[in-house]
């Protein structure tokens, strides 16, 4: 009898996961997100993140449909570069550029001719965005002057949108960047508010939000990203997606932790690829209209196959080539993949 009872239960469980089975949260999302354009709530996102592996193809398919319906078929390609690497006074526990950890990354400044050369090379890949990044708490006058100079030299040499990521800004700095033609500013939330104190102690979530809000108010596009796989719970991952959605950023770069030697998170395991794909689906279902960009760590977490699945599961932008301190897939691998998937690269619409 006991055995029979167990068998019966097993059959029931199996019934729930046969292909084609409807998952209620996906049915809801189809109406709410795809048809009505309203992102999922935090509690709904938890349901997506808890979907079984068998439901993953359906979730990714729906996210892909949402992306096509609300963003179109274009993929936005961006290159990023570090103008000032290492020696940052902040203590973000995932970051090899913090000067507070025993990381092998040395402090170094890129000179402007190299920067212009990189902008040209980036534009030649078809990229429309070039993001200049500095490992700082916030810019000082020297950095602001360098940025102004860099923007002018790049604009003389090549047609590409210039974005910046220079840490926390004052109102005056926000206004200056906007005036100089920086059309997008990156400042990440990184993780959920409830997990943030575990990861960063030298500044607060509020300070991050302040910069994000000033950037938006000044008319620049806000690029506000996530870094997942740092040991946060699924609930916190959903919380992060909901907190990002509330900010309504133009773009969300999605990073997966690549544990860096010498940092407090160096022994954190690499995130499971299926969890990463569930997160991609969830982020798209939270933010139907946002540019959702593949950023760092995807090579490790997802590999070639996962990269393709994500592009067919809600992602509609990529960072092409290398990152700030680590290497990406060859640019040609991503560009060829876009051709193969029949996804056109978004063309430059320079807003000056």
């Amino acid at each position, binding site marked *: 009898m006991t055995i029979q009872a167990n068998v019966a239960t097993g059959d029931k469980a199996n019934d729930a996961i046969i292909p084609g089975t409807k998952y209620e949260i996906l049915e809801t999302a189809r109406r709410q997100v795809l048809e009505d354009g309203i992102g999922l709530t935090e509690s709904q996102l938890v349901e997506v993140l808890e979907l079984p592996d068998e439901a993953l193809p359906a979730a990714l398919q729906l996210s892909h449909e949402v992306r096509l319906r609300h963003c179109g078929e274009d993929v936005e390609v961006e*290159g*990023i*570069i*570090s103008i000032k*690497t290492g020696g940052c006074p902040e203590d973000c526990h995932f970051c090899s550029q913090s000067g507070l950890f025993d990381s*092998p*990354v*040395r402090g*170094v400044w*890129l000179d402007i001719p*190299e920067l212009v*050369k*990189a902008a040209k*090379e*980036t534009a030649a*890949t078809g*990229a429309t965005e070039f993001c200049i990044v500095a490992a700082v708490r916030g810019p000082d006058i020297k950095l602001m002057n360098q940025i102004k100079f860099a923007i002018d030299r790049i604009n003389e040499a090549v047609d590409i949108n210039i974005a910046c990521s220079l840490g926390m800004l004052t109102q005056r700095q926000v206004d200056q960047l906007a005036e100089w033609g920086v059309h997008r500013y990156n400042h990440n939330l990184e993780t959920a508010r409830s997990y943030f104190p575990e990861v960063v102690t030298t500044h607060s979530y509020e300070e991050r939000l302040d910069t994000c809000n000033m950037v938006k108010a000044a008319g620049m596009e806000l690029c506000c990203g996530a870094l997942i796989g740092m040991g946060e719970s699924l609930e916190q991952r959903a919380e992060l997606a909901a907190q990002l959605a509330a900010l309504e950023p133009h773009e969300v770069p999605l990073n997966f932790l690549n544990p860096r*030697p010498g940092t407090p998170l160096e022994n954190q395991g690499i995130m499971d690829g299926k969890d990463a794909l569930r997160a991609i689906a969830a982020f798209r279902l939270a933010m139907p209209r946002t540019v959702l960009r593949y950023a760092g760590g995807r*090579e*490790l977490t997802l590999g070639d196959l996962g990269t393709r699945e994500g592009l067919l599961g809600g992602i509609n932008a990529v960072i*092409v*080539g*290398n*990152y*700030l*301190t*680590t*290497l990406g897939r060859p*640019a040609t691998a991503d560009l060829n993949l876009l051709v193969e998937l029949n996804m056109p690269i978004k063309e430059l619409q320079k807003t000056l």
Partner: protein
Amino acid sequence: MNGVSFPNRSTTGVSTGSTTAEFCGHCGEPSDGGARPTSDVHRRCGERLAMEPPRYCAACRRRMKVQVTPLGWSAECSRHGVLVP
């Protein structure tokens, strides 16, 4: 910039073939030098070096000044010059 070159040392991991690699470019620990089978520790380092530039000079173990751009990278040792992919 004094021109000493280490051809392809970085992208292929700790071993430099016939040239001398005293130290692992990834972790900075003494290299196996290719004489013995590569240890498990440095085999992982070799895998990592496909996905990130070397941080330590293979000749002297100094930390290098590394610059990464979207389509390339360079690593400079103050004693042994600039290394590119």
